[in-house]
């Protein structure tokens, strides 16, 4: 199957490691993808609050671009790895398909730009593609270094399975846990898998945002996690980069690696660390690296 790939802004800047590792894994698993040409920001969650029609139109532009680019394909599958992009694109599909009035306005706006939106795109999350298209067995087979003895806390965040549970349970998601299991690691059963990390509040209203990230890190550590894996650039950023602030504010000594699930996959599949953006991490996942390499971490 051929996929279109919608990176979104984060994966090109703060979340570069997500893009690098995900595409490296796709390549290794022979997943055929093409980046959408001339894509734009999805509008994230903020724009919806400002102007709905505009917000839906700019998000729909990406879907219209996909329709144009894959005009001849029977099925148009767009992979959106960022949790916010994924949620916004699915929301756009849903709202436009269910509200003729909104669709009319959006289609009119896109027409001005020479585009058309018919609504035949299917928005997919990479976890969905990996588990349901590629299959857990193929992934288990592709691993070269089983992550034996590594305890992994899968952190889904608020947007991947909510509000639209397209491929996993809204309350007790399992996809990432199953993936972790296929890599030979041990998933940690912890209760805060879908609890909010603070989102943009960590940067804007720190006294609200920081405690939320702190709760997650502390609970993951209490359940014995060696590493937290996530599928959201903002979650990864909040949980990893604010650890110094959190330790200072709450008088703690947390030093917990937080990485993308695709990085963990890449390590197990023996993809060179540089191709996985491992050098971009602030907290080194020493234990994981030791397990896969049997020696020193090899940062570039």
């Amino acid at each position: 199957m051929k996929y279109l790939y919608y990176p979104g802004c984060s994966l090109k800047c703060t979340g570069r490691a997500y893009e690098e590792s995900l595409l490296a894994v796709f390549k290794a698993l022979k997943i055929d993808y093409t980046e959408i040409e001339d894509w734009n920001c999805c509008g994230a969650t903020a724009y919806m609050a400002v102007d709905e029609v505009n917000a839906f139109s700019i998000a729909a532009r990406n879907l219209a671009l996909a329709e144009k680019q894959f005009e001849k394909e029977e099925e148009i599958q767009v992979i959106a790895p960022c949790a916010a992009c994924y949620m916004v694109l699915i929301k756009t599909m849903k709202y436009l398909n269910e509200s003729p009035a909104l669709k009319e306005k959006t289609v009119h706006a896109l027409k001005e730009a020479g585009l058309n939106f018919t609504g035949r795109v299917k928005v997919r999350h990479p976890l969905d593609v990996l588990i349901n298209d590629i299959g857990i067995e193929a992934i288990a087979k592709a691993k070269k270094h089983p992550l034996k003895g590594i305890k992994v806390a899968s952190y889904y965040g608020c947007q991947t399975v909510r509000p639209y549970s397209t491929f996993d349970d809204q309350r007790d998601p399992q996809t990432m846990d199953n993936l972790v299991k296929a890599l030979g690691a041990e998933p940690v059963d912890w209760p805060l898998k879908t609890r909010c990390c603070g989102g943009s509040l960590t940067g804007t209203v720190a006294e609200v945002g920081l405690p939320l990230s702190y709760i997650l890190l502390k609970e993951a550590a209490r359940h014995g996690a060696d590493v937290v894996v996530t599928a959201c650039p903002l979650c990864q950023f909040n949980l990893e980069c604010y650890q110094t602030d959190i330790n200072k504010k709450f008088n703690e000594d947390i030093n917990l690696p937080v990485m993308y699930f695709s990085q963990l996959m890449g390590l197990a599949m023996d993809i060179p660390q540089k191709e996985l953006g491992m050098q971009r991490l602030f907290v080194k996942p020493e234990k994981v690296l030791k397990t896969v390499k049997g020696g020193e971490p090899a940062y570039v």
Partner: protein
Amino acid sequence: MSSTNGNGSPRIGFYVCHCGHNIASVVNVEEVQKFVATLPGVIVSRDYKYMCSDPGQELIQNDIKEFKLNRIVVASCSPLLHEHTFRVAAEKGGLNPYYFHMINIRENVSWVNTDKVMATEKAKDLARAGIQRVFFHKPLIKKEVPINPAVMIVGGGIAGIHAALTIANAGKRVYLVEREATIGGHMAMFDKTFPTLDCAACILTPKMSAVKNNPNITLWTYAEVEKVEGFVGSYKATVRHKPRYIKEDLCVGCMDCIDACIYKEAKYPDEFNQGLSMRKPVYIPFPQATPQVVLVDPETCIDFKSRRCKKTCIEACDRDAIDLHQIDTYEEIEVGTIILSTGFKPFDAKRAPQYGYGKHQNVFTALEVERLVNASGPTNGEVLTRDGKKPKSVGIIHCVGSRDAKTNKWCSRVCCMYSLKLAHLIKEHTDAEVYNFYIDMRTPGKGYEEFYDKLLKEGVHFIRGRVAEVTDWALMPEEKDRLTIRVEDTLIGTVRRIPVDMVVLATGLVPRDDAQEIRRMFNISCSNEGFFLERHPKLAPVSTFTDGIFIAGACQGPKDIPDSVAQAGAAAAEALSLICAGKIELEPNTAQIIEKDCSGCKSCIPLCPYSAITFKDDIQKAYINEALCKGCGTCVAACPSGSIIQNLFEDEEIFSEIDGLLKFAGLETGALCSTEMEVQ
């Protein structure tokens, strides 16, 4: 000429009903009356305020005599409501009731239109169609079939028990078939019943033994219906007796075999106690089981695995009642009517993972807690957590698997009340703080609201809000090593965390797993939710679309004990009413094979939803059993050679009706008979 149809040239009487304002406020009935008077064959045309009233019916009867009418058409409400009324009126006037035809200008016209002119035109079109149709009506004779006075009741919970006793006490034979080893159903598991708090066992077990001892009741437990054939009045059912490995007639329930079992310790989860206690491979479901007969579970009995057990149980039985080589046996019975009272299944709490059932050990289902508070339960009535502690604080979560778009949308009707009951019992047994988390309190029943009021006074806490999650994650020191219920309290408008030692999930009621198979076996319907469908939600609540098959209790939808018993009584009365009549009239709108035209292709046979069509091998033709045919017309439409006709829906009747309907547009369909009508 067919339009004379046995009683001379058509002389039609037409009556249009005002139905108070229901029809007359939208349709100009006088105009309709005047219009119809001009149509061929119409001798009398009248409008009247209430045609269904006695004077209305007398109008028809008098006109039949005075004007020698031989066809009657009434334009009024739905035939579902009053077709029978008018047929009887026509019959009283001396006409065959099938010379009557009814047109619905209420549901089909006045209730769904606002434009008076257009509505009147539509009513006129429908009236003309009916007038043209009735030309071709024929006299039909209703067939009668005798009713076998025996009744089969499937399911021996409180509904089945009550129905069985009611019918048996009327002196009729009852076969009560129960798939479990004992009758009693879910009610036998309960400790007390709301709102009176009388002990469930005290009111149920006397009825259970009455069933066992009633000479008119044949009680078959551990048995299942395998096959049902026939039709109202004469059903034939095949019942499979499952092997209990005990000769039921010899066992007296002394339980010496249980003591003697090679397993000294009971080590298998006890189904009756919801797995909260253990049983041996040879066991009795509960002390008051009816019949008082033990059974052997081949899944756990070691002799069935190795065939090398010392069989100490057999040695211990001095009545030689144990037979480990029993096999399925089958029995055929003939009954006239059947009552299904197969009950419900509690919602599987694991389908709501946010409440942690199966993950956190101190999350219980309501049925488990019923067993805990029961004096003969696994803890002798002590309410204990799974780690053996008396809880200081208990949270009861309502609507688990009910009123939830993700699982089941329906309200299970009993959970609010049983949650109140459990709250009262838990408080009484443990003195714990009890919290009820509810969406709405639904207490509509005699004494129910008063019971809720009593609980409020007892100091039980009520928090309005759907619980978000049950978590073992402690945010505050007082939550450590406990379960925390996170909920939005919608009355004070804030999110609350309430630490408790025990969580009770008020699981809803869902259809049994095999409800669809049972439905097919008995040829009845299910609602969207999967509960058995009644014939009419208000006016035929225990009847089904298959004559002679009735439903009672929670198999029809969630209901409490009083409602189940009421329905069981109603179903018993329906069965008895058929039995007392001794015979039943069948609607004559059935289909028939025209044998000379039937090619024997068998296309119709699999299409019949009522299995009414069989194949006569000797003459290679299809045959329709009139007693089974419901007149749905599927076979008539499907027959490639047009060799099936249906009474009241013959081609000339339908074409003539269509022709009458289309005349408004100046369309002449040229339907076969319109020009040949013989008009006086």
